[in-house]
């Protein structure tokens, strides 16, 4: 079981998608039910995986390593640590939720929609479980396709523009990543005498700083676009606004995390010296993102694009915390990935529910919803507060740890970053005020139905998570910690090494590195 659980979790949705192919397309309800059941079983599998996961163990767990394309040393290599574990859990939970949330909102092409969703789930899970860089790349790219369809087929009025923009932006970076990937492959070949795409193997390879810089840039650009780090973010508002609700949820909840996950899994430990070089740049971009995203979010007229820009701001926090390169910053950063998935996911779901009722998302079209839809407003409020980072909600723990870590690394960054906390309150509360408070000015808003049971079922798990992580984040943090410490120790050892004139723990003369003293194990 240990070695199959990851495969099971990752590919179960795909099996479901294949299964759905054989369901007659007229039978919408069976399609929906099967998709939901598949997603739910996947979730159960992931729970099983969660329970089997050893929180204190160091290194990868449930590793599988089967040769795939042996000519290039490519293998089917899966494995997870705490970071991936949580992201997988987030993915499976959100998948179940979006299946329910799409129940009524998708009216055309139901079958195709659910097949795409399930394929997307496999793609996302695959990214998180891959320990083979090639496999990672394959999942990374493959996941674009279903998302492209989800935006493009079931999206809003400018869906085509948004879908193409989404794919082109992402593709631009990932193609450069491909070049870097190839370069890395040959570099490893000349280092070890054989091909390997195993991330764990590549960790061990010394890379001269010059090459490291370029490869890092290629990878970082890819991930930066995905995150998105300012100024690569302009695809995000379009994609979010045009995507159907579930698409936005997945996009914000999981897809954006792939960029940050890529940084954590690949850029930091694989290119520690280059990372150290680029810490100021990325931190500053992240800071710009935090403030810029918040400011632009403030003046949005569409709730969805407001939430989208708020993602830019929040992901800025994630990047900022990561670049602190200490335990608190990184741990906060990873936790904030999860948090952002939960709270922004919830916000998108809420906006979607509103859209289903009124077919508009313009802030100006609302007002006074707290009167006509009190339960809805309560959920909206809770999600917003979590997004603001109110203590005892999940957002606080993440943001606090991030800023704490960043302060250690560079107080100025922390000070600037912390202003984001203020701005978050500004845009969120202003939006809340205009949407749910005030008098009902539009007659259409008077008779809006409050949330029904299905919608409550969608939101309640997220609200529980919001408070759970806010009040008792220990189970999450303790699982992240070994992985994070590992990465921090890699970066730190290279920091001390580079200060001592060595490269990644090696003594290098010219291009030749001969002593092999590097270990991946953390302290």
């Amino acid at each position, binding site marked *: 079981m240990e070695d199959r659980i990851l495969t099971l979790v990752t590919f179960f949705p795909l099996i479901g998608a294949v299964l759905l192919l054989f369901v007659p397309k007229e039978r919408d309800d069976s399609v929906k039910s099967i998709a939901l059941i598949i997603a739910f079983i996947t979730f159960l599998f992931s729970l099983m995986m969660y329970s089997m996961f050893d929180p204190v163990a160091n290194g990868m767990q449930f590793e599988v390593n089967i040769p795939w394309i042996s000519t290039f040393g490519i293998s089917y290599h899966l494995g997870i640590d705490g970071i991936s574990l949580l992201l997988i859990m987030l993915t499976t939970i959100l998948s179940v939720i979006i299946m329910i949330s799409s129940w009524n909102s998708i009216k055309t092409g139901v079958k195709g929609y659910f097949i795409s969703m399930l394929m997307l789930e496999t793609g996302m899970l695959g990214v998180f479980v891959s320990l083979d860089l090639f496999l990672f790349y394959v999942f990374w790219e493959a996941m674009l396709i279903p998302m492209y369809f989800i935006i493009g087929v079931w999206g809003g009025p400018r869906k085509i523009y948004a879908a193409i923009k989404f794919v082109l932006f992402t593709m631009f970076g990932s193609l450069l990543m491909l070049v870097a990937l190839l370069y890395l492959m040959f570099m490893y070949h000349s280092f070890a005498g054989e091909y390997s795409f195993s991330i764990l193997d590549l960790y061990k390879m010394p890379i001269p700083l010059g090459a490291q810089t370029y490869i890092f840039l290629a990878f970082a650009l890819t991930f930066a676009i995905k995150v998105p780090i300012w100024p690569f973010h302009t695809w995000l508002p379009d994609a979010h606004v045009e995507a159907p609700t579930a698409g936005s949820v997945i996009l914000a909840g999981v897809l954006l995390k792939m960029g940050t996950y890529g940084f954590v899994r690949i850029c930091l430990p694989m290119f520690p010296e280059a990372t150290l070089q680029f810490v100021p740049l990325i931190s500053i971009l992240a800071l710009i993102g935090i403030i810029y995203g918040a400011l*632009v979010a403030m003046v949005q007229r569409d709730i969805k694009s407001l939430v989208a820009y708020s993602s830019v701001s929040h992901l800025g926090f994630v990047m900022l915390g990561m670049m602190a390169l200490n335990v608190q910053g990184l741990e906060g950063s990873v936790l904030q990935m999860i948090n952002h998935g939960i709270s922004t996911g919830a916000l998108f779901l809420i906006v979607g529910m509103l859209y289903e009722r009124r077919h508009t998302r313009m802030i100006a079209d609302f007002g006074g919803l707290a009167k006509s839809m009190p339960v809805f407003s309560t959920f909206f409020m809770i999600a917003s507060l979590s997004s603001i980072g109110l203590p005892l909600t999940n957002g606080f723990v993440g943001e606090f740890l991030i800023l704490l870590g960043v302060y250690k690394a560079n107080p100025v960054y922390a000070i600037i970053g912390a202003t984001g906390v203020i701005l978050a309150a500004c845009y969120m509360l202003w939006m809340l005020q205009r949407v749910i408070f005030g008098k009902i000015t539009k007659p259409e808003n008077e008779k809006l139905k409050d949330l029904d049971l299905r919608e409550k079922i969608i939101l309640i798990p997220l609200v529980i998570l919001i408070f759970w992580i806010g009040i008792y984040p220990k189970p999450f943090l303790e699982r992240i910690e070994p992985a994070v410490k590992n990465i921090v120790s890699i970066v730190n050892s290279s920091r001390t090494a580079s200060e001592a004139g060595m490269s990644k723990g090696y003594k290098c003369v010219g291009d030749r590195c001969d002593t092999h003293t590097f270990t991946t194990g953390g302290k």
Partner: protein
Amino acid sequence: MEYSLYLIPLFPLVGFLINGLFIGKLNKKFVSFIACGAVGLSFFYSAHLFFELLSLPAEARAIEEILFVWIPSGQFNVNIGFLLDPLSIIMVMVVTGVSFLIHIYSIGYMHDDPGFSRYFTYLNLFVFSMLILVLANNYLLMFVGWEGVGLCSYLLIGFWFEKKSASDAGKKAFIVNRIGDFGFLLGLFIIFWQVGSLDFATVFEKAPAMFAVGGTLITAATLLLFLGATGKSAQIPLFVWLPDAMEGPTPVSALIHAATMVTAGVYMIARSNVLYMMAPTTLAVVAIVGMATAFFAGTIALAQNDIKRVLAYSTVSQLGYMFVACGVAAFGAGIFHLMTHSFFKALLFLGSGSVIHAMAGQQDMRYMGGLKKHLPATYWTFMVGTLAIAGIPLFSGFFSKDEILWKAFSSQYGSTWLWVFGVAAAAMTAFYMFRLVYLTFYGEGRMDSHAKEHLHESPKVMTIPLMLLAVLSIVGGYVGIPHVLGGINYFENFLEPVLHAGQNLPVATHVLTSGSYSTGTELLLMASSVILVLLSIILAWYLYRKNTDLSGKLRTSMSGLHKLLLGKYFVDELYGAVIIRPIVNGSLFLWKIVDVFLIDGLINGLAVVIGDISTGLRTVQTGRLRTYATIFLAGVVVLLLFVLLR
């Protein structure tokens, strides 16, 4: 011994959960029973703990109980844990006690409101957060309460969310508080990375070793914490939210925006006295800001017409006093004033609530008058509060305010100027409070006839809390009668283990040796302030009772000043013009110009360029064979040229 401190905040939490989860499904009686019962239980349990604490020797009066690890991350470990010591028990008693009374009062006040159960839900949540704030054993948990009360304040100010001004005010309160919290957070970072912990006990124990006295770090940390305090306690420059907060229901103003939440800043500074004692610069800043606020807010209160706004500015002003006390290292005096203030200010607000209740929502004093005969109980209790806040001897306010003034004068950190401004502010307080009383309760009723018929005394459920608070406003001061008047100042002694920790620092011992002034000086100052207060009461009587025309004339002759005061020095407008508009416009610029025009434009531009190249290339594809052959030949020629030039 197990004290089960967690029970104190647990009761209101349970009340909140019951009322909140079943909102709209329970009847009003049950809701009010749960809400009041929860707070009452807390109160009685904390009273019980108070006596338990008293039974301990003074140096053992610090009970710490840890529930569970909250955020563990590397060397960073924060617990959910509670600390009960003299300081926190006083705060707990005040909070639960006053809350309990106000809860009961609210049953009457909010009786007809459709959001009745929502109101009590919020109120319980508030009490819970406030208790977390005061009971926390570390800064981060304190911050949880700190933000929690901010949230409740936001919710309760905007309780009548359909009123735009109310939800505006709530938002403003939250955001301004957030600015303070920004400072608070940064302060925490400095403390953590310097000391390695956020637990009060550890921090205060290690701080003297980890920080240099008067050094940049400690000064920065304390200043940042103070920024948090200015936000929460409405000090310059972040006081703007408090007057607007009066949009909320009046009991809320009484509880949150007068008695409890706004004093959190004072509590926090008193709690951090060890740190503040190590940063003399910060102390000076605190004192000056406090005094400036006290004076400044007092002047604004002189000209306000809204009964609650007068009280609000008076709150700001009184909070300024408390900060002055903290700033001159007289933390005990600050807490003392905090306590008495919470009694009489709660009383005043509830009284004004009773008035508003009677006036069917009218808050403008220009349309009141002569209410004394209609609302006798309200009048008398209100009068007690007014006398207490004015600092008339034998009322609680006298003792606490006088102690602050004396410390402002006598402390090593004090100065004569602080005293002068303090007394001036006290005189103003007396003036505007009596102006308020005269305009409201005396003279002819200026309300319309319909409203006149409506006038009635509030129900018992409202007047009894008033009376209880009136009693407290009188006797509350007697726990801290100063030595000079023959008292033994129980209060200071009780707090000593907590507050003098900082003063026992080797670096700060000189602070205590401030007794170089004779008791005569102290009495003289006391007398002069009392006389000034009395004089200003007489002035108020003259202007608003005796010769009402004169006040009108005065208003017209100094219309510039009056407008300035009535317009609250136009600080809101200033902030709007200098901060808010530029930010909004800047954001629009970022969105429309940078995002859409520049970044997207750049990318779209790239696409257009590629498209243009494509279109350009396509013109070559003429469909004519000759063109094709020509280009073919050209290709051959060029490539041959390459070979030749190789």
